[in-house]
């Protein structure tokens, strides 16, 4: 191993910070200090470059380590074998189940029923909103599937295909202060679900607008779950895996906005985008039944509402 002595105490100090700098774990002021030093020190810049290169190489090589195709199936087989014994309270002894059932009968009244509905409603909202978060996390955050400079509108339309290209002007028109960098159809590994994914940059971060088919699922009604209903669009909000998410449903699609902005900021953006995007999303449904000409008219109508 080659060992290098440092003449500069500052180089030595900065290099001790480079690991935390690489992991984005430094305080803002220390980051500023490191950056200032790197601007004037070629040796430390090269050192950072090498460390970054090693880390990127590791990340890239590891990303290619995919599970065998049958692993998902094998897990489900094992889960299914365990299911009968776990369907109720996960293998709790029979007497605890009996006690729990008795307790439930005793408390079953209007309040109990309402509480159960509320809990169930909250769970469904969390599960549905998690769809958008998982796609944002996998595609935009971990996959970094967006360019530093925005793709051209033509390219974005091409990536979206004829079915979803009409959504682009709606998203671009209503995301004030954001620039749409990327738009595509994607999926989360291990799931057949498809997402229409717009990635926009603004307010110092990125924000995803995501549509996915409802597949027969619905967000529960109930005023206690609704964060707001501008233009008749019932908005749901949540904080999942460190991201703020706002969601609503159109006739055939769930729509999510996901970002690390504050929950109220995301909600505010969703309330502006919601009505126009819901109308546009409902035009997609029409595409199957109305044919291209009437769909184009329906989309034009949605876009006109932007002005």
């Amino acid at each position, binding site marked *: 191993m080659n060992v*290098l002595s440092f003449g500069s105490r500052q180089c030595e100090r900065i290099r001790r910070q480079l690991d935390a700098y690489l992991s984005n774990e430094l305080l803002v002021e220390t980051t500023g200090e490191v950056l200032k030093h790197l601007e004037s020190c070629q040796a430390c810049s090269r050192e950072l470059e090498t460390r970054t290169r*090693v880390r990127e190489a590791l990340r890239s090589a590891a990303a290619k380590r995919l599970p065998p195709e049958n692993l998902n199936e094998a897990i489900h087989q094992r889960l299914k074998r*365990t299911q009968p014994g776990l369907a109720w309270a*996960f293998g709790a002894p029979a007497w605890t189940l009996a006690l729990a059932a008795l307790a439930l009968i005793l408390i079953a009244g209007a309040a109990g029923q309402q509480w159960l509905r509320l809990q169930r409603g909250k769970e469904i909202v969390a599960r549905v909103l998690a769809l958008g978060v*998982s796609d944002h996390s996998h595609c935009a955050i971990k996959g970094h599937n967006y360019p530093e400079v925005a793709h051209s509108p033509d390219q974005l339309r091409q990536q979206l295909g004829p079915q979803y290209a009409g959504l682009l002007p709606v998203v671009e028109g209503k995301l004030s202060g954001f620039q749409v960098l990327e738009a595509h159809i994607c999926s989360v590994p291990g799931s057949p679900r498809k997402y229409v994914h717009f990635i926009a940059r603004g307010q110092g971060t990125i924000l995803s607008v995501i549509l996915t088919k409802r597949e027969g699922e619905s967000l529960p009604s109930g005023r206690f779950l609704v964060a707001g209903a501008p233009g008749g669009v019932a908005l749901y909000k949540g904080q999942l*895996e460190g991201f703020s998410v706002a969601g609503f449903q159109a006739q055939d699609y769930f729509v999510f906005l996901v970002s690390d902005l504050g929950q109220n900021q995301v909600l505010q953006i969703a309330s502006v985008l919601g009505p126009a995007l819901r109308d546009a999303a409902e035009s997609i449904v029409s595409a199957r039944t109305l044919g291209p000409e009437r769909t184009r008219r329906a989309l034009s109508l949605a876009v006109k509402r932007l002005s």
Partner: protein
Amino acid sequence: MLFRGKIRVEDFEAAAMPHLNDLYRSASLLTQNSSEAEDLVQEVYLEAWKSFHRFELGTNCRAWLFKILFHRLHHLRRRLIKASKVEAFASPGAEDNVMAEPPVPQEIRDDDILQALEKVPLEFREVVLMADVEEFSYKEIADTLKIPLGTVMSRLSRARELLREELAEVAKAYGIPPRTKEASEG
């Protein structure tokens, strides 16, 4: 938890299954054996399913699954081998006023880096995987591995250094000469 059988299966699917690739990737790089990794990931999902009533929906399911993964892995390792001594790989002290700067090939092939990673002892490998591949924060790593934050930082630093030393061996095999002090400082 009553009357929730169907919902819970769906909740579990939505919260846990999207992380299969991440879990397998880490499991295979930690165990260095694909069938052991498959078994480990299956065990993780079984354990997660059994404990799902303790998981709070909407919280970080990925971090929770990794916690189970490392718990299982450490349990297996304790049964199989005595953990290698961390001290044996301790970083040079700050008072040495020296810094390792091994040469790294300009083009690093996937095989080279994964082989280099295999040679890094498990205690360090798990930290560098969590930080650099899975992108967990220092705090999440400390929580998952049940080690202090300072230990996360020192192990990560040493892990990256060990990885570079192993890559330096690759560089040597490619005929790339070690850097001289002058060249490094130039």
